[in-house]
């Protein structure tokens, strides 16, 4: 029941939360934090209890949901790829709920939706049945619309305007459009299994289904749907623009979950549904993915360099970093793939930290314009310190988790796609340029007189930031526990290279 509980705690908790009287803001927030603590502990325990030497899916549970001829089962399981994701979700959710302490406007509704979202994310990561994977995927996407549309903020950039409704609408339409593609591919796979006489939605059974001769053709046809459909969520270029705009509109804790966890759903989907079910189609299409990933890395980094809004900078840096994940996946190499999964984890923690701090600054200064913020370190030293940690992780400083992940991706890519690896390394250098420029501009130098009144981030915010920074450091210094689990998962991806 442990895996089911990861879904049930936020889901039922959210429903219970809905019955709280709306004016008891404090109790509501405390209850939500308790829920997230429970989930965090559960996810840590699950991760720790995962036996990587045995590998495969563990903590399985399965209920029949719809019988023949559909054969849909509600089955859950966690392997080496989903285990770090579950842990990531637990950590980011906890931090985001802490940050949500600042929400004043209808906190109850906000937290209920947040819990639904998290339940959906957990469900997607642990589902072993395509039907439910898709179901939870949609459950994770849809609350975003309300969370951004109601609690978001509109921004006027002088030359253009981004309303929160625009951000919310774009994000939802994009993700739903992506999921349509995915759904088509899922139906096609089900139909193929139906024709083969073994109708199923189960991820594992679909792997072993005997398909007819045109299967290769089938895979070449449907893999790109999965790749692009989930790729939209992972910020695949040129379907990335929903992400920065979504961040700019979203409230802090939603940005954290959005960049920290939701974008990972996309990359996870590509691995789980794309690579594992259609390895031959993947072989045909991965060169395209690696190319797009390289574009992501470079284009995102260069775009981030000239952004003036803190959230845009972080948003585009997310696009850039997700590019490493895509490259790593596309290498189909054990090192590269392991690096990709680690990068998903590391980037999730890192961006969550970024957004928490940007939110802390925005709450106090009410601007996010890099041109106006100057010398904040004097008044917000801890914020500056944590921002520097996130920034250094982002530019791939050894000792923080980003380095290990990016390094593995480079090693993996170097074997098969040398120019891409070189672009990746250069992209990391560009990241250094814009992150350091940002740090120097916003935090260092003499403070502007109008910021003299600012106060440092609150204890709750610093607590969340400290947790995230600690994880970054821990994984950077001692990646062994995480890598052992990831290796166990990566090794079972069909067609993976470099297994010896």
């Amino acid at each position: 029941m442990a895996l089911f509980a990861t879904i049930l705690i936020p889901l039922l908790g959210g429903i219970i939360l809905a019955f709280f009287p709306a004016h008891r803001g404090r109790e509501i927030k405390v209850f939500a934090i308790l829920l997230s603590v429970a989930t965090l502990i559960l996810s840590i325990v699950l991760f720790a209890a995962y036996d990587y030497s045995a590998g495969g899916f563990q903590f399985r549970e399965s209920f029949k949901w719809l019988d023949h001829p559909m054969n849909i089962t509600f089955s859950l399981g966690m392997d080496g790829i989903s285990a770090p994701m579950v842990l990531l979700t637990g950590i980011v959710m906890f931090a985001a709920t802490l940050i949500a302490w600042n929400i004043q406007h209808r906190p109850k509704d906000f937290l209920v939706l947040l819990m639904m979202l998290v339940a959906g994310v957990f469900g997607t990561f642990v589902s072993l049945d395509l039907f439910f994977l898709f179901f939870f995927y949609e459950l994770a996407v849809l609350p975003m619309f309300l969370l951004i549309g109601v609690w978001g903020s509109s921004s006027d950039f002088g030359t253009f305007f981004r309303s929160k409704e625009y951000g919310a609408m774009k994000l939802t339409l994009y993700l739903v459009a992506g999921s349509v593609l995915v759904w088509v591919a899922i139906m096609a796979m089900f139909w193929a299994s139906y024709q083969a006489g073994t109708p199923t939605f189960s991820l594992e059974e679909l792997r072993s289904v005997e398909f007819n001769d045109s299967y290769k053709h089938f895979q070449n046809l449907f893999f790109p749907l999965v790749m692009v459909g989930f790729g939209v969520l992972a910020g695949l270029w040129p379907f990335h623009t929903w992400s920065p705009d979504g961040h700019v509109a979203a409230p802090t804790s939603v940005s954290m979950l959005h960049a920290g966890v939701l974008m990972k759903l996309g990359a996870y989907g590509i691995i789980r549904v794309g690579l594992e079910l259609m390895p031959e189609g993947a072989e045909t299409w991965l060169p395209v993915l690696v190319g797009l990933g390289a574009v992501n890395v470079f284009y995102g980094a260069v775009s981030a360099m000239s952004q003036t809004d803190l959230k845009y900078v972080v948003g585009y840096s997310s696009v850039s970093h997700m590019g490493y994940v895509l490259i790593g996946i596309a290498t189909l190499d054990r090192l590269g793939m392991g690096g990709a999964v680690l990068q998903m984890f590391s980037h999730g923690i890192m961006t969550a930290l970024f957004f928490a701090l940007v939110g802390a600054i925005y709450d106090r200064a009410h601007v996010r314009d890099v041109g106006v913020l100057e010398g904040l370190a004097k008044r917000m030293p801890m914020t500056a310190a944590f921002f520097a940690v996130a920034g250094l992780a982002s530019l791939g400083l050894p000792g923080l988790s980003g380095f290990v992940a990016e390094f593995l991706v480079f090693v993996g890519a170097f074997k098969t796609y040398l120019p891409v690896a070189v672009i990746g390394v250069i992209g990391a250098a560009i990241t250094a340029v814009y992150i350091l420029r940002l740090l120097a501009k916003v935090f260092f130098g003499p403070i502007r007189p109008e910021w003299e009144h600012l106060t440092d981030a609150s204890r709750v915010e610093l607590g969340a930031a400290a947790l995230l920074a600690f994880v970054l450091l821990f994984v950077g210094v001692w990646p062994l526990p995480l890598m052992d689990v990831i290796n166990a998962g990566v090794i079972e991806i069909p067609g993976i290279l470099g297994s010896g």
Partner: protein
Amino acid sequence: MDLTQLAWLIPAFSFIAFFLVVFLGKFLPGRGVWISILAIGGGFVVFWVVLVGFLGADCPMAFGQATCGFSMEWFTAGDVELSWGIIVDPLSVVMLGMVTLVGLMIQVYSLGYMKGDPRLGWYFAVHSLFIASMLALVLADNFLLLYVVWELVGLCSYLLIGFWYERRSASEAAKKAFITTRIGDVGLLIGILLLFDQTGTFSMSGTFEAATAGQIGQGTLTLAALLIFLGAMGKSAQFPLHVWLPDAMEGPTPVSALIHAATMVAAGVFLVARAFPIFEAAPDALTVVAVIGLITALIAASQALVATDLKRILAYSTVSHLGLMMLSLGAFGYTAAIFHLVAHGFSKAVLFLGAGSVMHSMDEETDIRKMGGLRKVMPVTALTFTIGALSLAGAPLLAGFWSKDEVLLAVLDHKNYLLAFALIAAFLSALYMARALFVVFYGKLKDENQHVHESPWVMTGPMVLLAVPAAVVGFIALRVTDTGGFGTFLYFNKAHAFEFSYPLGIASALLALGALWLGWMAYGKGSTLLDPLKARLGGLNRIIENKYYLDDLYQWTIDRIILLVAKVVALFDRIVVNDTGVDGPAKGVRWSGGIIRYHVTGRMYNYALGMVIGGIFVALFWWLLTTR
């Protein structure tokens, strides 16, 4: 028990000190700075243990050198195991000794220099991390670990150069240092990946074996060597990536001393020395190293001659000497380069601490035109500074003389067509040292400087202690007993005892003394000897004073090209990808909806007519279908 295995303790002490001071410093008396000093002091003690252990140990040989070490798993990715591990060989032992000693002295000195700073704890913590990273760099037994600590060294330099981050110039200098060295690091990382791709291992010994055994293609090997050298160019401030080092003077002066003497810039030279088997197998790359080193030496020396900021003069002098070390490495002068690294390290540490002492008493003044005759009020500083300056200038019998001679000898042996330039660089380095020395400490004491006083003993003590090796460390090269000198301790493949080439030695001694005399005539007496020369070479002078316009070129490139490209890409993203590619279809749908909605007239008879026409069409269709 093998005492060399204890070497890992040396960086570990300082790493632990970093965490202790950062997290617990607030609760400790004196903000825990003594932990930091204790750690590096402990490291210095362990160094002696390791040295004794190393001399007595029976280590396996690699490239003619006894090499101990161990390695343990860090993590495994796929089927590749990544490890931590250390190498204890003469190279790392020498570096350990120098880094711990200089680091210890500078930390003690900092107690006085940084007294009363509100972020004292943070300063010492990062200082510890800096030294720890450098020590780990020296000990690293695989390229991955080396890259990790290499970047940490860069980070610490960033943090320390930008220590007074409220100053715009400091934060800019820190940024510049990090980004410039990072450009080199891109090369280093690609080089490491390239070697890994060829050999399947990150371990240095494995890579070197493959390189010498010819398992790697010559072209690839040369490329890898050049890429690694790119990393060294960034860290060791070689032309054209040297621009960050003079700006790095924005940090507190002890930090400059640390960067210049023991840690940061030495890392590049060390890296080339460490990866020497690769360079040796790729002679073309070595030629590049030599030429770059020479260009750096000459350019930096010329800039040192015109700079008016005391710290910048020293900074350019460092760049120039690093160029000489690279030149030496490029000329197969492995021993000479490390020897010069050590001699230069001690001398430069003394010089920077002296400069810091001057600044400390003169309210952070660094303009040498406002100084003069300071030896009357700061005797100890003046004496130690003089020793350091003369040593670097190559005055006979001081450390710098012996090491520079070795370098020149290596050049003569292997790259003799560069010897003339090397001699010019040596001459210039004596000239600018004379300028700094005589203008600041000799001549007439200015009236407004009468209040200047000698620094406290916590500052002068380390200076004196460092001046001693700066003066005498050269003698380790000499064959004292039958055991031979430095050249039989640290060498590459083939031991060679100290050689002294009399013609060259006398030539370089005359050159140094001549330059010092010229400097005395030109600067010491306040004579106008150089004024007509300056006037005659006005154009050249201007070019040099503007740092050969390199900074301007880089700034222009960043402002006009890179940022412009970034703006264009960002605009492309918003206008083409977003507003056209994404909002375009959305607007298209809305627009066509706006058009199509006009068919909805709201008038019933239009709908009725439509229904009838539709009905007729259905009927016709049905009829056609059934009457076939």
